[in-house]
């Protein structure tokens, strides 16, 4: 059920994306996500997505394996796509059959949302595929540093984040194991009926959460046993460096951001249509 690469999983490799500073990568993700969400035109969204895919391929990231791992999400994405098409009633009608109406507006909206979510996942995959969870947490810690002035608990937040990230694959593994346990005792998950598929989810999700609560308690104890505390300044085992690659990367996405801002404000592209 969950083969391929799970969302949020790290895959070791050695392309330029691996060398970049995590702070840099997080900033890149953030800017690109904002750009994609703000962009109202399908054409420019796809263009932006194209750049993301280009990054993906030039860094030799396993595109197909990521797609395979996205199967479940793609499934829900397609459902939202279809809902959007059929439940938008304003706009120019392009197809009508008794009560079913499809409008141009609905179709374009559906496409836009589909691309948006798809590319947002892709952008974040770039970060999580090439950055270890501890590095991501470290990056956030550095980014949030200024908020220390307002007594924001940055260190605790970073710890929480790194634990949460660490738990995503654990949750999926847990899910797989519970499915195995139920399968071996006669539960059927490969039923072609859609309703049955949906109904089979609660009985595996509940034990998954219970199980992971118990797991979390054990981790907390294990951390305490090794005297984890936030009171002292933490040192890090691996030093993360910032190099020329980072500079180029910053220039690269700042340039793209500027181009988009230019299009958005000065050219005021007709944003709702192509």
């Amino acid at each position, binding site marked *: 059920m969950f083969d391929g*690469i799970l969302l949020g999983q790290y895959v070791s490799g050695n392309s330029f994306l691996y060398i970049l500073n995590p702070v840099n990568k997080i900033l890149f993700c953030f800017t690109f996500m904002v750009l994609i969400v703000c962009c109202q035109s399908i054409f420019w969204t796809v263009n932006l997505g194209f750049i993301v895919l280009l990054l993906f391929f030039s860094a030799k990231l396993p595109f197909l394996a990521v797609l395979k791992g996205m199967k479940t999400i793609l499934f829900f994405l397609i459902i939202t796509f279809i809902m959007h098409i059929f439940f938008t009633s304003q706009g120019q009608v392009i197809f009508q059959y008794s009560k079913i109406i499809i409008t141009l507006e609905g179709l374009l909206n559906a496409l836009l949302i589909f691309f948006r979510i798809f590319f947002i996942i892709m952008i974040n995959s770039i970060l999580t595929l090439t950055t270890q969870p501890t590095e991501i947490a470290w990056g956030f810690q550095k980014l949030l540093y200024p908020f220390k002035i307002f007594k924001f608990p940055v260190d605790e937040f970073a710890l929480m984040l790194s634990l949460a990230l660490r738990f995503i694959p654990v949750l999926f593994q847990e899910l797989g194991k519970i499915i195995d346990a139920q399968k071996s*005792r006669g539960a059927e998950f490969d039923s072609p009926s859609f309703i049955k598929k949906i109904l089979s989810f609660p009985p595996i999700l509940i034990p998954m959460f219970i199980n992971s609560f118990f797991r979390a308690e054990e981790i907390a104890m294990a951390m305490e046993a090794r005297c984890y505390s936030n009171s002292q300044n933490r040192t890090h085992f691996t030093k993360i460096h910032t190099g020329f690659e980072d500079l180029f990367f910053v220039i690269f996405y700042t340039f793209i951001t500027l181009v988009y801002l230019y299009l958005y404000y000065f050219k005021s592209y007709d944003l709702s249509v192509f």
Partner: protein
Amino acid sequence: MNAVTFNNVEHIYNEKSPFEIKSLNGVDLQIKKGEIFFICGNTGSGKSTLIKLINRLLIAKTGSIKVLEFDMNTIKKPFELRKKVGMIFQYPDNQIFETRVKKELIYGPEKFGMSKREALVKIKESCVLAGLDYEGFKNRNPFELSGGEKRKVAICSILAYDPEIIIFDEPTAGLDNSSILSLKKMFFKLKEKGKTIIAVSHNIDFISECCDKICLLSGGKVIFSGDFVDTMMRFTNKELEVFGVEKPFIYRLLEKIKFKDKDDFKEKIKNIENLFNV
């Protein structure tokens, strides 16, 4: 009559992804009906993978597997197969999912179409067999049990639907000595009932007490398989490391040898001579 037949079976985890791992590499294996069959091997040698293939929790791309009357290459729905092949997982935490012990125990029988009354009788029977106090535990939350108690619940939840083949993955792990003793007795009782038992274990005392046949897995391949004493005789020091013992253990084996006839006697003596280089 064979209960399980493996023919040149290969298995790869995460095929065609960056995490590809070849776990089984051409396994040939035969397990007869009514046997107690042990699978041994170092950690990571593919034991758990192998037994998951029997239950079709994993599917092998190459090779053929036959389990009872089912052929894995042609089987459509594994439902009937799983009814007859019960599997107790390596870690009971991975197997338990209900919030009450009694619900956990009745899950299998209910899914496989037993009536409630019939299931209850079977559950109580299997609790006696596995040494679990049903009345005392039925309303407990299985997540809060101790490791050994969880294992007992896991065993009962499988025995409750009376499968023909029962697979145990490291059943002695986390059990105290008296529980291991009752596990041993349980194995014999199940054998008396005509069940086939397949178990993964490294507890050499446990194995030598109740084993009919044994196989040794290494690097995804079966390197030895056959009668317990004969197979153990052929092990070198290196292979005995799997059990955490060394050659002196051979002496314990010698006590167990039974001779069928004159030829058998001669052959076995020859084996022993080889072993001691005399």
